[in-house]
């Protein structure tokens, strides 16, 4: 990494911050992948107001299912669970940490993931059985009034404005993203999670092949192996060379002239045309010695025995 490249990165970061510092509504498209053995989260910020995009600073997400002592600041009851190694969905937590850090960097520290709460006058928590609600309509103001656990609340939606932060997260529909979505939904924050439609399509195809009757899963495995043969084993391409040798040997050993090679048999005789077999046999009788005739007859008998098991020679009329 040269000095100039570092300067360009710094310049990019300051320009991105300048664009997004005064915005409150973001769309973040995010996905992680392993680079250099590290799980790297790449995120793209988009503003519907500016119609502009910027890459957030990539984040490395730590793997593992154990929280080390003093690794992060935790509530007491979570610390107790961490000490007993009973914390679950740690990867989803680290994913949210990474996104939160990216949001914080992009907005010069103005927002993080916990900032996307609804305004103070609005409570988006679900009502409970036995609660009640009423929509009050007047000439000056309309509002929803709810009675939650006996206490009367007025939903002051007028306090929502352009300054209220809203985040839309676009992710692939993986276990990490789903767990993060479930947690964020339970907090009733203004974070909307959306899942990528292409990932969904690919998953639909995969699930259809797994669940449809007909052994499609095995076919996928076999064809993936056969069609990747040219790069195997271990990306060396050694089997590709062997394939080429096999083809060259086949072409060198066989011939299209009927009486001279088994290619003709491959091509025509075993196509289910018995009369051609007979014609070849008669032809052989005429030109070959008795000894070679015996060999040829033996070969053709074998050919006939395998006729139905060699489908590339079968004809359309079979169906």
């Amino acid at each position, binding site marked *: 990494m040269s000095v100039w490249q570092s300067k360009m990165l710094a310049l990019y970061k300051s320009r991105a911050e300048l664009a997004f510092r005064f915005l409150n*509504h973001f769309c973040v498209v995010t996905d992680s992948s392993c680079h250099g053995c590290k799980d790297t989260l790449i995120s793209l910020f988009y503003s519907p107001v500016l119609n502009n995009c910027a890459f957030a600073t990539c984040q490395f997400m730590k793997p593992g299912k154990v929280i080390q002592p003093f690794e992060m600041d935790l509530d007491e009851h979570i610390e107790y669970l961490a000490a007993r190694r009973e914390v679950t969905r740690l990867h989803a937590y680290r994913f949210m940490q990474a996104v939160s850090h990216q949001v914080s960097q992009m907005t010069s520290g103005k927002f993080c993931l916990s900032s996307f709460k609804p305004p103070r006058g609005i409570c988006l928590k679900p009502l409970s059985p036995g609660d009640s609600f009423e929509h009050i309509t007047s000439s000056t103001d309309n509002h929803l009034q709810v009675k939650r656990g006996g206490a009367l609340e007025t939903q002051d*939606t*007028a306090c*929502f404005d352009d300054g209220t932060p*809203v985040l839309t997260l676009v992710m692939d529909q993986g276990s990490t993203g789903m767990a993060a979505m479930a947690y964020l939904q339970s907090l009733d924050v203004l974070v909307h999670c959306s899942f990528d439609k292409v990932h969904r399509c690919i998953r639909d195809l995969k699930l259809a092949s797994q669940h449809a009757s*007909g052994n*499609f899963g095995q076919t996928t495995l076999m064809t993936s192996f056969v069609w990747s043969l040219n790069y195997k084993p271990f990306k060396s391409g050694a089997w590709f060379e062997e*394939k080429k040798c096999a083809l060259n040997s086949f072409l060198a050993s066989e011939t*299209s002239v009927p009486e001279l090679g088994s290619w003709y048999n491959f091509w025509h005789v075993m196509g289910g045309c018995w009369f051609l077999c007979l014609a070849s046999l008669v032809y052989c009788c005429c030109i070959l010695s008795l000894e070679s005739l015996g060999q040829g007859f033996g070969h053709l008998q074998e050919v006939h025995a395998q006729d139905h098991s060699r489908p590339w020679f079968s004809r359309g009329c079979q169906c």
Partner: protein
Amino acid sequence: MPKIIQDLGFPEDASAELVWQEFPLRLTTWRIKELAVKQSRWFSWHDAASVQLPEFWSARMILEWYCGGANPDATCQQFNKMREDLGGLELAFKCLSQETFENAHVMYICSEPCRGWYSWHIEHVKTAQDNLRYQLHLSRSITWQSEWHLRELAELLSPRGWSKFNKLMISVLNPDGVAKKIFSFVTQLLGRRCASLSRHSSPPYCYVGLLGSDMASARAAGDLMISDLTALLHLEVSTMDQAQNLAADLRLTLDACSRLASMLLWDGHHEKSKALLKALLVTIPDSKCIEDCHQVVRVARKNRGNEKMTLPAVQYLIENSKVLSQRDLQHGPEVTR
């Protein structure tokens, strides 16, 4: 007509001499490496299938000549089991059974509508505005139920769509069995695609009409928003059996953001509701741009040998990639030299 002649596109009356001379030239994957199937790359199997399927019987013939051994139709087993004993070209030969031929064709032909749908979206729905236009199109002109790739999928089971299997049916041994497989695969795929696309009928996507210029659609979307919210509130306060379970299910789509957008509209704050809905719906259409960024990093890493890929190096690569410009997305902070 022999299958090789049919697969490699020779005329039906082609002479053996002609076929003998020409057929090695048509075996592309025996001359050049072509594509490998990569599980993580979208439609990689289908790309490989388009090249490899026409060479199926030719490959089987050459491998049978080269490897010998028993007929794969009789000896083909579970792949992992065969892999324990065999490898290389012998294993490849064992995999090339009649069942593999039939199943691969069924999967390839039945997946074509989804592949077309993917290509169309990558080509036509690139930006956030395209995404909004497409959603408005789905809400106004057609509904997701009549989306073209779903119709193409369903059509595969009709007499008109069945013609796509004509060529395959000539080569199969058990047409009824293959027809059952086709029916099973298409219905499975169609059901899953419908389930995936049904999100356009759920909040907040079904409220997109509010962002369009058509007044009737906007009014209908507004009415739907308020009725959905009141229905959810009634369920939440209900003490009836299963009402809470149903409400919890509904909250998966009618989340806090959609709930607030509906409340804003109910209280008469139309512009605020629209602004919130815009933040939810005017988004980058897919995460392909991020996948492409990861691919840029992967390709760069190959050229670096054992050199460590540091975070600044990754950052520099993605910021200077052409991923966003290829998707017609504006990249304001880009540093030009």
